[in-house]
């Protein structure tokens, strides 16, 4: 069929066709016939969300620009396109050469969080690929999962041929090259998987199963009987030297505006801090920097190659970059006000305010995440943030003429007591007074508060903690809402139903895949979208599969489902950090060492 001819007819019937056309400036369409390996890279959410994720685009450019292999992109189709595809039996296609997904050798999913799981299944299904790994045959693509969730993937394990744990730049190249040579020798699918386990970071879940002691107690995952040559523990990979690492300078210029419509440079990887609830703070250690001259050069080239008027200086807690001010001043000097700089995650301190102001003069708001309101609880989570610093930051924000501050807090953190939740109210009210006393803007100062339920994350010191029930979340958030009201404050919450699903599927074992599958079959899609989340599909699925979701919110004992994966920090270190949390002691996370 003439693929180009097919699309106008199709695309004229969907609400936002530029999600599916491809052809963006700097997108790469390679010769399909001559590429040794053809891979589809999928971000399982809408185009405009996916386009804001630089990780999967980094791999797209790395493979397309530096190897003979080919990578094309696909995003989750919205309901209207799904309906057309199903009705007309058209397989889901890639954006570049509009090839059906089942024609690719490999399909890679960027797994950022649990609420995209049903989209993953939908995409496989629409692409004509059997959902369960065990049902796939020799000609089906290999399904690979990467991104943070690949470090705790058990609830999705039966759908994947392999996961890649950690930063994938080097590992993906090794995987593609190995598959190329194995395919030329007509190696079977099963043997390819077996061979790939020799690449560090590769986890082939079908080669591991849960073992039990004679007393019937779970011992965790181990290689299946007879499979001796494979690693018992999978080490996550990281790039050692960021200075020499590949970074795309010809970045995608999307037609449909993404959530973050900008070019990006990456200041550093990992995070200096070790907030005890945060996966990012533990998964990508140690911190690795790019030098100032390299970032200056990359920034200029990227701006020239894309024509963007906004550049994001991205990293976790970007204000930890030692030369951030120099970089901002350099870019301001070179481009003046024709370039807007965005600093997406600034640490809460007065100096951050100054940086935000020089990077964007028009700025009227700032966002910070103190996470906990009482000094005690901030020590428990190792936020390394004093009350004095919080007040100084807010004062500075008001003095610099801004009139809106967005603050993030959590409820349900370990050791949380009633007075810690009350402390959010009193702190926010005090901050509001301080801000208005120092404000230079004509408009009254406004505070936007977002409250999220704490979700215990694997590989963090809090990986075994208890998670709040949905009801308790609503109660605490309801209390905060009754105390912090419009017009002075706006209080939003991260949907407790979503936090519940994230917690359950994040810490769940393989049997949970049945629930995800069943919810998908009932119609669950886009679970991260408030207007699309259908919690009753999940409720029914839990009942039908006879799985009690509440047990996953409890404190966890014994072997952990992600126990086969080693994230670079020892169990002892995590335990020590947990103990310190309960003693309300802080740690200097920059001293954490690899095992």
């Amino acid at each position, binding site marked *: 069929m003439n693929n180009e*001819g097919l699309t106008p007819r199709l695309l004229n019937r969907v609400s936002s066709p530029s999600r599916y056309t491809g052809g963006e400036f700097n997108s790469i369409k390679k010769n399909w016939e001559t590429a040794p390996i053809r891979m589809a890279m999928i971000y399982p959410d809408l185009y405009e969300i996916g386009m804001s994720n630089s990780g999967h685009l980094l791999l797209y450019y790395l493979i397309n620009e530096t190897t003979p292999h080919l990578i094309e992109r696909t995003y989750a189709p919205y309901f209207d396109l799904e309906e057309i595809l199903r009705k007309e039996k058209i397989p889901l296609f890639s954006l570049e050469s509009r090839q059906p997904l089942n024609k690719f050798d490999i399909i890679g999913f960027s797994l950022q969080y649990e609420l995209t799981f049903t989209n993953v299944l939908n995409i496989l299904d629409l692409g004509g690929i059997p959902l369960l790994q065990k049902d796939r045959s020799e000609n089906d693509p290999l399904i690979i999962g990467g991104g943070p969730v690949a470090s705790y993937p058990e609830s999705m394990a039966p759908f994947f041929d392999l996961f890649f744990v950690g930063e994938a730049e080097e590992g993906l190249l090794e995987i593609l090259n190995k598959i190329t040579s194995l395919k030329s020798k007509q190696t079977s699918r099963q043997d390819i998987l077996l061979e790939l386990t020799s690449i560090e970071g590769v986890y082939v879940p079908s080669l591991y199963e849960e073992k039990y002691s004679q007393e019937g107690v779970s011992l965790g995952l181990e290689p299946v009987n007879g499979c001796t040559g494979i690693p018992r523990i999978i080490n996550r990979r990281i790039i050692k030297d960021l200075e020499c690492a590949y970074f795309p300078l010809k970045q995608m210029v999307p037609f449909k505006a993404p959530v973050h419509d900008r070019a990006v440079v990456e200041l550093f990887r990992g995070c200096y801090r070790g907030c005890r609830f945060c996966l990012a703070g533990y998964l990508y250690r140690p911190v690795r920097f790019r030098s100032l001259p390299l970032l200056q050069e990359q920034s200029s080239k990227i701006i020239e190659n894309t*024509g963007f008027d906004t550049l994001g200086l991205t990293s976790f807690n970007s204000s930890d970059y030692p030369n951030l001010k120099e970089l901002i001043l350099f870019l301001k000097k070179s481009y003046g006000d024709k370039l807007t700089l965005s600093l997406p995650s600034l640490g809460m301190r007065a100096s951050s305010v100054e940086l935000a102001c020089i990077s964007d003069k028009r700025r009227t708001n700032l966002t910070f995440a103190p996470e906990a309101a009482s000094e005690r609880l901030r020590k428990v989570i190792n936020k390394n943030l004093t009350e004095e610093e919080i007040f100084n930051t807010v004062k500075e924000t008001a003095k610099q003429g801004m009139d809106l501050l967005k603050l993030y807090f959590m409820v349900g953190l370990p050791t949380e007591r009633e007075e810690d939740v009350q402390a959010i109210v009193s702190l926010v009210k005090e901050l509001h007074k301080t801000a208005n006393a120092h404000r230079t803007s004509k408009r009254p100062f406004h505070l936007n508060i977002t409250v999220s339920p704490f979700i215990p994350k694997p590989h963090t010191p809090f990986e075994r903690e208890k998670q709040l029930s949905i009801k308790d979340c609503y109660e605490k958030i309801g209390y905060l809402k009754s105390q912090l009201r419009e017009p002075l404050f706006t209080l939003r919450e991260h949907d407790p139903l979503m936090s519940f699903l994230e917690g359950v599927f994040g810490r769940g074992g393989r049997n949970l895949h049945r629930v995800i599958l069943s919810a998908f079959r009932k119609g669950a899609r886009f679970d991260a979208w408030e207007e699309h989340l259908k919690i009753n599909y999940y409720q029914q699925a839990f009942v039908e599969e006879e799985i009690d979701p509440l047990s996953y919110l409890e404190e966890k004992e014994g072997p952990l489902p992600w126990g086969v994966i080693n994230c670079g920090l020892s169990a002892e270190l995590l335990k020590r950090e947990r103990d310190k949390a309960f003693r309300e002691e802080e740690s200097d996370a920059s001293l954490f060492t690899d095992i």
Partner: protein
Amino acid sequence: MPRYLLIFNRKRSVRFLSHLEEVRALERTLRRSKIPLSYSQGFSPRPIMSFGPPIPVGFSSRVQLMEIKLDKQLTPEEIFFMINPTLPYGYNLSEVKFLNENYPSLGSFPLEISYLLLIEGNGLKLSINSFLSQPYYQVLREGNRKKKEKLFNIRPFVLHLEVINRAEVNDFLKTINISKDPYEITWLMHNQGTVIFFQSLYTTEGSVKITELEKALNVKIIDGERINLTRHR
């Protein structure tokens, strides 16, 4: 400051861009091209540019207009060769014109816009004739910003409407001095339906939207191409 009029084609997948998406894509193209664009003053300087009439999503075009100002005078050829290579796939610059200082700015004078439309089904001659025979055709329009909906007569903005025999499309284009475009004509071959030549008047007082014409004729437009755009005298 020297002013220029740029005329673009839009074909293939970029025909699915909305007006806003097209504006953004072309602005970024100009930034990449490094032509010495003039910027507006103030806190957030933007390139000084204006665009011709918006086109419906899904329509291709041979005449997308854009007017720009430069800080430095360049020849139209220089501009052409700076911009054309930095355009996204599907766009092509067909012409660059230097505009005289007293030439009115884009949007200040009426335009005649011609389209070829592909319409589902056959036997449209009757509904076209009955539409053309009336002096009025009122449509209900949403008022902008809290204003009430109001009736609007679209008939004066429909200058010409004619069914073209599929086999004679190329000859017809020749009679109005437009050469055929091998790619764009393929949609005629691939799809069933009736081809219509439609000429609309676009003025500061008003214009007719393609969707309004679709409703007025009670038809479904499958595809369309903007083939010509001239100053209305």
